């Protein structure tokens, strides 16, 4: 996994050396070319897992930006409403992910998504306390996170 990433960087550097230019754009192009080369020999060196992971992390990043825009719009709609009438609450979210960096990542993603803000993790790493700006139905919010971000994280890092 890491080895293939290093090879990919090496291929990008080789491309830079061959074309005689180490400009950022050219190195990036070399990196993409290296990825294509790894794709062609995927059966010999088993690189399809590596490429699939790249794809999954990419879609996770896109989903993240999309949700950020959505959540900013929603906050804007709430703030600009003439009368602010909300039902905020702090809910306990049962975690499925258990590794530290996955919890960190999920907490960060939750904070930047519509209406939710992670407040604390319980000491046994099983529960994430999430503050919701408007939570008429607690279970619906939990299901949203479970089927959205948490599943994406599990796909990308397992």
């Amino acid at each position, binding site marked *: 996994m890491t080895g293939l990433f290093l090879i990919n960087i090496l291929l990008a550097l080789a491309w830079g050396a061959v074309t005689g230019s180490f*400009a*950022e*754009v050219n190195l990036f192009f070399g990196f993409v070319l290296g990825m294509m080369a790894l794709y062609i020999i995927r059966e010999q060196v088993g690189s399809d897992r590596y490429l699939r992971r790249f794809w999954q992390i990419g879609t996770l990043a896109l989903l*993240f930006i999309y949700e*950020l*825009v959505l*959540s*900013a719009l929603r*906050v*804007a709609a*709430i*703030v*600009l409403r003439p009368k*602010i009438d*909300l*039902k*905020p*609450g*702090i*809910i*306990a979210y049962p975690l499925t992910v258990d590794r530290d960096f996955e919890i960190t990542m999920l*907490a*960060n*993603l939750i*904070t*930047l998504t519509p*209406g939710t*803000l*992670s*407040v*604390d993790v*319980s000491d046994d790493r099983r*529960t994430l*306390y999430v*503050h919701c*700006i408007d*939570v008429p139905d*607690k279970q619906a919010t939990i299901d949203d996170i479970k089927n959205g971000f948490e599943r994406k994280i599990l796909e990308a890092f397992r």
Partner: protein
Amino acid sequence: MTPFYEIAVGIVLVVGSIFSLIATIGLLRLKDVYMRMHAGSKAGTLGSGLMLIALAVHAGEVDVLTRALAGVVFFLLTAPVAAHLLAKAAYQAGYQPCSDTHIDEMADEPK
């Protein structure tokens, strides 16, 4: 720099500023520290990010572009952490959520 770019940069800049303004209005209008954090962390991040991107496109140089993108990435990384820590610190310091708050499962947590 064609007129098209100029207009696009201008629009993105204005939209970014509007989001920053909304974040500020949110800080003033929402009721307690936890709800204010929502406005600050989300609308604020998007506003600053959009303005940085507009700057990068306007400069039209690769080194400015990479620096601006690094700025956006660091905003995305640090804003949630800062909001989370502020909320956690506020809760531990005993700040009660406002009276509209109808669920508080953190109160049941064994200390």
